[in-house]
């Protein structure tokens, strides 16, 4: 019988080009960003990069109030968007799990937002959200609701952006939850029916606990995406009005590509990476069955 090492050798030879490519594409940027984050490096200057150790990190964590504001906006946006998407996604999944006429067509139309180009659709949403000429305020006026400022006010901008994100990504949560619903065993539901449980009791005591792993997967994936959201925020508000919708990604882009502080922007990127890593680990713990 051949030893495992002998069996593995030709397979390794076949995957090594891909492995080398991945190391270059993944390892190089990571190592280089870590290197840049320890430099005082202003690209629009004749002064070459200077090693400053952890100075950029100290400034980010202890001195830069705008970093704190961006961190708060990032989590607030994620919380609002995730709450809306998860609630609506699960409800829509329950709806699509029931039989009704035209279910297939409706479901197909429902997932179209997921396939749209974020930049293009953000431009459309900006037009719809114009306070004086936008169609959303027109619809509100038809039901005698006061017009909203949407993304044109510091008070409502995060909610408005979360609505756009929800419109795009609720279908994603719906699909995962629907997949989970279709794979649930039928015996607990039959037993509940025999025992006389009503719909609410069945949903909260049986359906939801059984769906938990699937919802958790969807929440983990969406929360990482929400934390990193860039396209719709950049196109619609560029972090404004003021800094009301400036998230960490927007802040990092501004520092690196508008203001050319490459070293500082790299340090923000590393801190952001650590934050996402911690959030992912915490959420993965919730996924474990009790």
């Amino acid at each position: 019988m051949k030893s495992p090492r002998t069996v593995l050798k030709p397979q390794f030879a076949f995957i090594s080009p891909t492995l080398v490519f991945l190391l270059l594409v993944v390892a190089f940027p990571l190592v280089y960003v870590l290197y840049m984050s320890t430099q005082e490096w202003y690209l629009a200057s004749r002064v070459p990069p200077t090693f400053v150790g952890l100075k950029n990190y100290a400034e980010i964590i202890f001195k830069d109030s705008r970093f704190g504001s961006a961190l708060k906006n990032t989590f607030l946006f994620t919380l609002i968007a995730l709450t809306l998407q998860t609630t609506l996604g699960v409800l829509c999944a329950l709806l699509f799990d029931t039989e009704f006429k035209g279910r297939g067509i409706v479901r197909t139309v429902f997932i179209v937002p997921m396939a749209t180009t974020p930049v293009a659709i953000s431009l459309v949403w900006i037009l719809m959200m114009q306070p004086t000429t936008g169609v959303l305020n027109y619809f509100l006026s038809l039901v005698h609701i006061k017009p909203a400022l949407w993304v044109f006010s510091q008070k409502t901008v995060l909610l408005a952006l979360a609505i756009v994100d929800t419109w795009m990504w609720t279908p994603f949560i719906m699909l995962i939850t629907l997949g989970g619903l279709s794979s649930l065993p039928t015996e607990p539901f039959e037993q509940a029916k025999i025992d006389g449980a009503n719909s609410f009791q069945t949903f909260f005591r049986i359906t939801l606990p059984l769906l938990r792993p699937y919802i958790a997967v969807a929440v983990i994936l969406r929360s990482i995406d929400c934390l990193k959201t860039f396209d719709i925020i950049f196109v619609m508000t560029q972090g404004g009005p003021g800094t009301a919708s400036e998230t960490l990604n927007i802040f990092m882009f501004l520092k690196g590509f508008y203001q050319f502080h490459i070293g500082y922007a790299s340090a923000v990127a590393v801190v952001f990476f650590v934050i996402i890593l911690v959030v992912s680990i915490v959420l993965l713990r919730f996924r474990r069955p009790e």
Partner: protein
Amino acid sequence: MKRGRFALLVVVVSVLSAALPSLAVAGGAQEAQPTAEGGAGKEGFSWTQFQGKTLYLLNEKVPNNETIVNNIGKFEALTGMKVVIDTLPEIQKRQKIMVEMAAQSSTVDVYTSAIHVEKKSHYEAGWYEILNPYMSDSSITPPDWSWNDFTNAAHKLATHPNGDISTIPLDNSPHIFFYRKDVLAKHGLEPPKTLSQVEQVARKIHNPPELYAFAMRGLKYANAGVFPHTAFGFGARFFDSSGNIKMNTPEWVEALEWYARMLQNYAPPGVVGWNWYEVTSAFQQGQLGMTWDGNMFGGRFEDPEKSQVAGKVGYAVMPGGPAGQVPGVYANGLAINPFSAKKNAAWLLLLWGTNEENQYNSAAIGVTVSRKSVVADTAFLMEKTGMPEDYVKASTLSTELGDIGLPYIVAVNEFRDILGIAITNAIEGSDPKTELDLAQKQLAELIEKTEK
């Protein structure tokens, strides 16, 4: 392969990949040394002395630069050179230039520079080739070319405090005052000449939602391109007498109070998200009574096919305050990449791009150009642009009275960001003095970090 050897391979690849940038920069540094170029010889200047060469022009996508792009074939026929043009939007062009210059790449030979943003930062970074020696080199400059053929405004824009000239301006675009003649006439009002008169007129003509009396840019960063020269009229200046940045003086506070109040009371809702596009579109569609912005928008307002206000717009120099009228002036120019290997050939493109023919072509589409002879030809400008006399007069006078609307500092983008946030917050209701005090603190730190 044994596990130990595999791990060694991973480490070697990672270290090599991290070391790649050093190798790239070293390679780039070698490319940065320009090679010797062909000259005119002892006979004097000749347009064809560099024939056969290819130049790379990095162009910013603005109407002011269209003439060069559209007529580049004439340069190629004149010189026997070929020009490859890469046109990018503003932000992308700046990012590309940043990458090219940081790598000391010789790919780009000539680029269009937004002087009002890039003047000092590019100069301090060594990203401009200094043009003074070229102007006086008779082997590469025609005998009939003179820097004195350009306006005083162009000289001011292109020249640094120590006399170095880094660009040849293609234009100097002032911000002028646009107002609805018909609306003011209906109310029996004269066009306002001062900022306080603007407020009085706004109070009388404001009639939402049919007509909002006044609007300006409210969007962060964009608003910092119009607010400063509005504040100049209140006597506000970027620096105090000792040369320190000072943006929270009583004049700046009064100016921001005025700006915020006008936009809160007389602008359409949502103006905090408005850039020049939204402001000029609203004016073009008849929703606004008054505004000021780049004079090139006058052409849009007079377009009978798209504009609801064609023939109804009055043009004037920006209203002033207690300290007079100081319109903002902004400019694009042509610059040579100091790392180019064809700088002498690139100089010919600068000369041709700013010649009288091209300047007349630009003026014909409404650009306020930088050559004296074209700017002074009022009859041509009125006939070719189809614009009324008050537009031409306002544009010409504004370039004489005006000043660059942004400070001469390296970190202009950060300046606009910090000031822009203060302006937006004030429009949203924050106390202007508090906002300017915070902006002043941040700007002082910024200047300390980047200028000293």
